[in-house]
């Protein structure tokens, strides 16, 4: 479903929420309220302009809290257990990061720590902070700056790739050893599901949903 473009008179104000610009081809569209399940697409390049957001600020907050709980589980519990001759090795995410650092692959250790721990953590905490205030209809201190930071962090969270990595590692290690998925991997699987739900949510809607209070 696409929206017809507007005429020039709308463009005169500084901020015009009635308009929408496709971020892939710069075509200007007139915004229209979307019904349940509807998606607005650009007429020129067919990119998604906007989705109907069925989850409000409260729902998003609930999701973020859930993600936080699951994230803690995923980091505390071992992910895979490996046995050989009665000896057992269990590994956690931080065990992996520390081991890569020791094995002279510091670059990989830093990449893993960033994309699997620090960036997801920053994103969750930031979003939780913004939404906790958003629920009472206020903009959290530092709202604007945090929204910008979140925009930059977003592409660098890779927990869902890690889940697939765990799966491949189990199969690979299974060629030689007795491997079992541990509790942590189920937490990661749950995290991957939650991330998928989240991917349909455009965080930028918070700019409109949490209005600036007039002092």
């Amino acid at each position, binding site marked *: 479903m696409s929206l017809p*473009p*507007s005429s*020039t008179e709308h*463009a005169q*104000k*500084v*901020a015009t*929420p009635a*308009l*929408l*610009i*496709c*971020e*892939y*081809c*710069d*075509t*200007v569209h007139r915004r229209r309220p979307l019904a349940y399940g509807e998606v607005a697409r650009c*007429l*020129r*390049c*067919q*990119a998604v302009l906007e989705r109907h957001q069925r989850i409000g600020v409260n729902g998003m907050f609930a999701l973020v809290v859930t993600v936080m709980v699951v994230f803690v589980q995923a980091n505390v519990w071992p992910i895979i257990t*490996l046995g*050989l001759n009665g*000896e057992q*090795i269990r590994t956690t995410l931080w065990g*992996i990061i520390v*081991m*890569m650092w020791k094995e*002279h*692959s510091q*670059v*990989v*250790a830093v*990449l*893993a720590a960033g994309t*699997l721990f620090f960036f997801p953590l920053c994103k969750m905490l930031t979003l939780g902070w913004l939404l906790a205030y958003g629920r009472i209809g206020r903009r959290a201190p530092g709202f*604007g700056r945090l*929204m*910008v930071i979140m925009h930059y962090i977003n*592409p*660098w969270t*890779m927990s869902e*790739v890690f889940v*697939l*990595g*765990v*799966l*491949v*590692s189990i*199969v*690979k*290690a299974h*060629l*030689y*050893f007795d*491997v079992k998925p541990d509790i942590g991997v189920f937490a990661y699987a749950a995290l991957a599901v939650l991330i998928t739900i989240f991917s349909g949510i455009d965080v*930028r809607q918070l*700019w409109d949903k949490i209005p600036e209070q007039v002092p």
Partner: protein
Amino acid sequence: MSALPRAHELGVIGCHICGLVCRDAGVEDAACPRCGAELHRRKPDSCARTWALLVAAFLLYIPANVLPIMRTVSLGDVDDNTILSGVIELWVKGSPDLAVIVFTASIVVPMMKFLVMTTLLLSVHRGTNWARTQRSKLFRLVEFIGYWSMLDVFVVSLLTALVQFGFFSQVEPLPGVVYFGLTVVLTMLASMSFDPRLIWDCKDEDD
């Protein structure tokens, strides 16, 4: 004016960060009134930056494939694996389906990124009208699948941490995996610095 007006025709700019539609004041360092980010019509030096990052990524991709990424020591038997030999091992010994996934993530996706980004850059330089919708879609695809290439890096890390039985068995990361991780990061940066609006910036004839 065409039926589908573009931002510059209406004298507006869409903020690249928060998406707000702002009036174009025509000054150099205008900032978005909502998020404070700098406003620009196109990402600055988009083509030059993308080329630079893409070439750097490609240069690192060569050692990433040639050098082994992982050493498996088993009862004194040393076995070095490259990305490709790891895929073959998975195919032969265990599960062809996972081998396909790893092959896609580690070889198809990076190669596709190089090809697609080069095609996009060349076509933007030539200012051609050719297949603009498809090129736009290709860019979104590359943007979407880019980070899945990290799969092999995580697999090597996991195996390294897991298999530590001293003399009996051990897995060590080798330099190839570092080059590969850097390749993925650089290709991601390359696709982020490319401005897909440029695809549509040539003269319209068919609109």
